């Protein structure tokens, strides 16, 4: 570490004499000579920026031989090297797509020329995030970035999203780091489910996260840093990749008011298929009764959801100061009756310059408040979808609508479920669940940040930032008496669970940028940061056993006991120092070197709370180094190697007793006696090449990476006779390797006056392998989702790819025929078998933009290939005799099987009930319910019209578009949408248990700027 500092010291002294700063003035015009206001002017490698005023004039302080980058949406970015002259006039022309001279926002908010990057970074412009808007900005990334897998949660609007970049590399957390304007966002979600039955505390719910709350219209773009090299400066938090969001900057001298309104209609698509020919016997919860026409279409249960997002932005900038204020309102009613979301986003951003523009102060604040009524859950408990699918068919859904009847003996309304004496936990009246087990989820998020940027000298700037994040999630559920007694006390149950997470982040960064000589350039960053995260949870739950004293009065004072009231906490502080340098040679060869050292509070009481990791990378612009054929505009190769360390879970090295209802409870986990813990280490190398040709109309980028994460922090079961009473030991073991490549291909297929067609393909494939899982304690298997008594298990298995789905299969004879027992029935093997893998082999995104005069059309096709999913929903529907398959089989006189008795007698047909009774259900032969997860989806479609600027009264621009999301599947094998998961955590992947059916959205987008 000291060595690095001294190298910097030397570099500083060398530099002092080299830099000369001066004020450059000039103007920017378009092809016709008209001035362009609002052009961004950046200094390459620095954070300094300016923009043109209303007359297209600008002024900026810059050193000689620096490169000024002029950029404006829709125009070709122009680079101009500062020479002797103090005036630079620029003429900007319409952009060719993916120009050579792009700048990208990289780690810590530092802008870099794209060509110098030694690693893969892929960008999305703001337009791509808002064209077919989703309430959650991250959902719009699907299919647009190579190597990024987007999996939505099945909780409808306001749900969180699982983002996996370059495969899963950790046993415990694979979510990327989100960074807004250079500052890490604390994206802690409150809860994710991890059981196939459903959480007893109010169902399998998605507690939401922070990134799903933000306003997509506030951002002008997104950069995804995929590999370890790109993210080394963010340290452990960035080990799974980094998603950088940049706020919209205000254009100088301009006053604008923008209004955007999106309305979409969401309808349920991809429901399971149901039979309509068989009723249920009296008193039976299952539909295996007589042949009789029954309700087969349960679609009527679902509503057409509407989502209305209105956002507006005011902005104004004068010389030296700019202000913007944004507001967005989201109002969405879900497809399940009673589900409703309301969200309000407020944002304010103020930037001012002081001391002759040497000091730039930017202050931002954002506040989001979101309320969701009856957020959909999955699993068997508290889930109306389960009751809607499973209800005995002697009764129609309209019979169930009378969900309560007055009970004279109790003087209250009791749950009414026609045909049942007592409701059970997996079969309650869905309308009762909607109306008498209401839930409210509230998520509030505040973020405030101050950024100071001081130009010490021409070659040295000092930046310091401070941000405070506070997110609050509150969940309340009021469950009335006469709900299923295994879930709700006979007098009712109340849950009120609140979590407040805060993060204080501060950094100080020195930026050095200069040329040693004509040939050699140098830029460097050195800094330190501190990140302190905390959360405090207060969970009040009157419980199943204790309940409420006075029926159906939902307040803490009415709790029968204190057993379900628990406080939780989390604290972590990471302190870091880091340095990164880029050496350039003749603007064709660039060498990156970076290093970081972290000190983490979670590693206290271990051998060393400090850990160090480096990265190195090299880029060569071949097209500038050698003679290339005429048609090649650009070509580069790059290679990088990086390591990222990762600390462990909080509090593990300091086990304490928790106190529940007055009783101190042994810590459930601690280090194995006589051992210590250490940080995880991810190593990755990446090579890549980028080419552009035919006047930049065709280009591609290929990256190959190979990463390995070792010393994974993991918990393994302890022997039950251990003296501490630990359930688990915390150990370091296990490694995950990921190898894969990514191809980004783009082409301007047609480029003419009237018609343009741009096409882009994102392809990625990843192969993972899990190793070094200890044979002791876990026998080579880490179970991520415990099956309970259901036959779905999700595991990491030694020598196998990440995320094995395990299930059980029907017993077969040596020839592979189903073994029919002496009793004429099938049986299910006792042993678990691998039945699939939850992760795709490769992913493909194919987007096309067509421009025809004032019309623009866009279509995005998104495909995931390979991998499997398991449907417990189908298994349970078959078991209950409500599925179409079970009806068809009954109509056909039985299930056709390729079976045989032990003596070899062939059996070709089996009674439908006998067949499904043994093989279906949540704990049957789940291997029969595995489907190929491959699917190709028309993810986004938009057709827009932009009004002629010159003919608009009092408006600067106006456009309208027809949009559609998840329009239809071109190919799909699974009976549900495999891009939706029950959890955005690590468990419950590749399985459906009565998840909310996926929706198709069609709507209108209106955009006006005044």
């Amino acid at each position, binding site marked *: 570490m000291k060595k690095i500092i001294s190298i910097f010291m030397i570099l500083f002294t060398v530099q002092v004499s080299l830099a000369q700063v001066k004020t450059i003035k000039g103007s920017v015009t378009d092809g016709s000579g008209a001035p362009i206001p609002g052009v961004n002017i950046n200094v390459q490698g620095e954070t300094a920026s300016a923009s043109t005023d209303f007359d297209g004039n600008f002024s900026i302080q810059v050193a000689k031989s620096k490169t000024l980058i002029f950029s404006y949406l829709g125009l070709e970015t122009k680079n101009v090297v500062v020479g002797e002259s103090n005036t630079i006039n620029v003429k900007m022309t319409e952009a060719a797509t993916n120009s050579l001279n792009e700048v990208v926002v990289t780690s810590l908010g530092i802008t870099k020329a794209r060509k110098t990057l030694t690693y893969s970074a892929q960008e999305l412009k703001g337009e791509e995030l808002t064209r077919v808007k989703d309430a959650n900005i991250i959902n719009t990334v699907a299919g647009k970035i190579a190597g990024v897998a987007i999996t939505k949660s099945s909780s409808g609007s306001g749900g969180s999203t699982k983002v996996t970049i370059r495969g899963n590399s950790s046993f415990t957390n694979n979510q990327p780091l989100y960074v807004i304007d250079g500052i890490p966002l604390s994206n802690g979600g409150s809860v994710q489910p991890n059981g196939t039955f459903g959480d007893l505390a109010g169902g399998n719910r998605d507690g939401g996260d922070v990134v799903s709350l933000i306003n997509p219209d506030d951002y002008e773009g997104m950069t995804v840093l995929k590999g370890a090299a790109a993210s080394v400066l963010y340290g452990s938090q960035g080990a799974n990749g980094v998603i950088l969001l940049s706020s919209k900057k205000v254009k100088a001298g301009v006053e604008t008011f923008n209004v955007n309104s999106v309305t979409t209609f969401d309808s349920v698509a991809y429901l399971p298929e149901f039979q309509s020919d068989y009723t249920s016997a009296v008193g039976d919860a299952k539909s295996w009764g007589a042949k009789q026409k029954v309700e087969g279409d349960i679609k009527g249960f679902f509503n057409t959801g509407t989502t209305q997002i209105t956002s507006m932005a005011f902005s104004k900038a004068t010389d030296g100061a700019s202000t913007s204020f944004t507001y967005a309102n989201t109002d969405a009613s879900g497809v399940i009756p009673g589900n409703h979301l309301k969200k309000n986003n407020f944002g304010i951003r103020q930037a001012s310059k002081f001391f002759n523009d040497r000091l730039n102060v930017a202050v931002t604040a954002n506040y989001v408040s979101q309320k969701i009524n009856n957020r959909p859950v999955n699993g068997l408990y508290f889930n109306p979808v389960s009751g809607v699918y499973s209800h005995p068919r002697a009764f129609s859904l309209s019979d169930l609508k009378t969900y309560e009847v007055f009970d004279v003996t109790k003087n209250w309304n009791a749950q009414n479920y026609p045909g049942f004496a007592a409701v059970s936990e997996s079969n309650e009246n869905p309308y009762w669940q909607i109306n008498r087990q209401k839930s409210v989820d509230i998520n509030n998020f505040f973020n405030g940040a101050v950024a100071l940027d001081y130009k010490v000298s021409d070659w040295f700037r000092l930046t310091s930032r401070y941000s405070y994040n506070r997110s609050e999630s509150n969940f309340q559920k009021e469950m009335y008496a006469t709900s299923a007694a295994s879930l709700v006390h006979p007098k009712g149950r109340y849950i009120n669970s609140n979590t407040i997470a805060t993060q204080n982040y501060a950094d100080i960064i020195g930026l050095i940028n200069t040329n040693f000589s004509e040939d050699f350039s140098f830029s460097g960053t050195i800094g330190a940061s501190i990140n302190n995260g905390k959360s405090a949870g207060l969970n009040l739950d009157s419980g199943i056993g204790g309940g409420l004293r006075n029926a159906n009065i939902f307040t803490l004072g009415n709790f029968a006991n204190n057993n379900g009231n628990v406080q939780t906490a989390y604290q972590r502080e990471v302190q870091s120092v880091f340095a990164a340098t880029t050496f350039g040679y003749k603007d064709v060869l660039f060498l990156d070197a970076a290093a970081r050292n972290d000190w983490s509070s979670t590693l206290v009481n271990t051998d060393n709370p400090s850990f160090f990791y480096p990265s190195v990378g090299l880029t060569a612009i071949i097209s500038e180094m050698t003679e290339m054929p005429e048609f090649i505009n650009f070509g580069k190769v790059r290679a990088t190697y990086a390591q990222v360390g990762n600390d462990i879970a909080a509090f593990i090295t300091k086990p304490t007793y928790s106190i529940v209802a007055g009783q101190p409870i042994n810590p459930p986990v601690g280090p194995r006696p006589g051992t210590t813990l250490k940080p995880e280490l991810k190593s990755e190398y990446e090579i890549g090449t980028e080419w552009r040709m035919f006047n930049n109309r065709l280009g591609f980028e290929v990256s190959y990476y190979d990463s390995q994460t070792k010393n994974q922090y993991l918990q393994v079961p302890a022997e039950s006779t251990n003296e501490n009473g630990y359930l688990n030991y915390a150990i370091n073991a296990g490694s995950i390797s990921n190898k894969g490549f990514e191809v980004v291909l783009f082409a301007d297929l047609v480029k003419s006056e009237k018609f343009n067609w741009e096409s882009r393909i994102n392809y990625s494939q990843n192969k993972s392998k899990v190793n070094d899982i200890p044979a002791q304690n876990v026998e080579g298997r880490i179970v991520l989702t415990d099956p309970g*008594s259901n036959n779905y298990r999700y595991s990491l298995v030694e020598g196998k790819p990440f995320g094995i789905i395990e299930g059980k299969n029907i017993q077969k004879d040596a020839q592979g025929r189903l073994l029919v027992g002496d009793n004429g029935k099938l049986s299910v093997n006792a042993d678990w078998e691998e039945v699939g893998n939850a992760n795709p082999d490769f992913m493909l995104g194919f987007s096309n933009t067509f421009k025809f005069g004032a019309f623009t059309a866009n279509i995005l096709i998104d495909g995931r290939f390979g991998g499997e999913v398991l449907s417990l929903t189908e298994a349970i529907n078959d078991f209950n005799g409500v599925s179409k398959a079970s009806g068809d089989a009954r109509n056909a006189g039985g299930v056709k099987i390729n079976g045989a008795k032990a003596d070899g007698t062939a059996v070709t047909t089996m009674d439908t009930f006998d067949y499904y009774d043994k093989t279906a259900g949540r704990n049957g032969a789940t291997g029969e319910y595995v489907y190929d997860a491959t699917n190709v989806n028309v993810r986004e479609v938009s057709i827009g019209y932009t009004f002629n600027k010159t003919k608009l009264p009092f408006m600067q621009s106006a456009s309208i578009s027809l949009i559609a999301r998840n329009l239809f599947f071109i190919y799909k094998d699974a009976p549900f949408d495999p891009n939706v998961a029950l959890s955005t955590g690590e468990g419950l992947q590749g399985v459906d248990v009565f998840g909310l059916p996926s929706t198709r959205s069609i709507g209108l987008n209106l955009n006006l700027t005044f």
Partner: protein
Amino acid sequence: MTINKIKRTALCLSLLTAFSCTDNFEDINTNPEGATIEQLDQDYNSIKSLFKPAFNHLFISETTWQYQIQQSLQADGWSGYMTTPVPFGPQNNHDYVLNGGWNSYAWDDAYVNIISYLYKAEQRSKDKFDQFYAWSLILKVATMQRITDMYGPAVYSKFGKGVATYDSQKEIYTQMFKDLDFAVTELTKRNAAGEKTAFDETDLSLYEGKYANWTKYANSLRLRMAMRISKVDPALAKVEAEKAVSHSLGVFTATADGLKIKSPTDLNVIDVMSHSWVGLFMGADMESILGGYQDPRISKYWNTSKVTPGEYKGVRTGIIYPSGSTYSKFSQTGPRTKTGEITWMSTAEVYFLRAEGALRGWNMGGTAQSLYEAGIKSSFEQNGAEGATAYIADNTKLPKDYVDPLNPANNAQAISKITVAWGTDKEKNLEKIITQKWIATYPDGQEAWSEFRRTGYPKLFRISNNQSNGLISTELGVRRLAFSDSEVANNKEGIASGVAALGGLDNGATRLWWDTSAPNF
């Protein structure tokens, strides 16, 4: 405070001092909602808090599914009390294809949630607060008596001593008697001195911490254990049994002496399984025996069925259950299991133990017949049932034949041919004692299953759907539980010592040390 924070942050941010800002990491990495041992030492909570887990876990009383796999799906079924007539997939205890996952639970829960706490109690109180040490020993013996009667060899003397190796069942019984010696001596001494109890704050039983009550319980437990080894080691059994009965405070005599605890959540897990889950029903043996005797306790234990309205209808265990709901209209549990009160040991059981002791010629302070009849009366009293005198005198009513209204293939003739009234035949009288004890001990299937294994009584219906491929005999039934999966996976050395001490294969057919095939007398 804030200023300090800013100062510290500012300091930490300056590169040169970054190395020295980690001194508060220990605080940051300590869960503010957790309690450290130093905090718990105040008011001796570090000792007092270690007993409640035993009360909540000996019979799991807070979480229904845990009790289900602790005991309900094992002994509560094999004792003939109750059954869960659900096909449950391929591994089913009632078909004698033993489910390792379920059957590990009682072991794992006992060690993790009881023994690890009592071990801390020993470390923190021995030679300092011996009343607590004595109490911890009683609870430890109560726990381990159940565990060793399920699994056989177990970790007893080697707990907390490095690798957890197993003691044989014989060694465990010897140590349990010794541990009770210490506990009884200690509490008797303190009781005699009129010392105020130190347990009152943390005693979750109805004893309110009284030393005399706990001593009586320890003596009664000793009597139970003595009877368990009466066939394998009659000499030691006699000594220990007489020691218990002749002790100055003696064993349970009044019905109120029995040990009952109250579920902290006032939840009755058996009631939840039977009614909320519609998954637990009267056993056919209960219907045959209680129904045949027209035992008034039947309406306390069970509700009448919906399948034969107005009548009690049990389900045979280990037959083919076509679906989870086939038997859902049979008799569910009754008022006895409505409240959150759990009986650990009843006075009735103690009378029956003494009756058997007397039958064996031990000095039990009464005749076998008088003690037998006192046991019945005590059980009637405990259950609020009337008509004990007439019941005791009944020499005609016999257990009745079983009829399955849904499937005649399951019909069975009553196997037990005894009446309630005391007779002259020694073996038959033993059968009467154990049968009556079986009725009285309901719903503790674990104790009933142990006594069934020891004596063969009461005579229970055999299962008809034995899927064990000959591993477990239909005639003898399951004799033990296999060792915990957790131990097999994570304590290989321990398991090896356990299998050696078992002296047989680690499966459900191997007989325990006290479970000899010798005749009862």
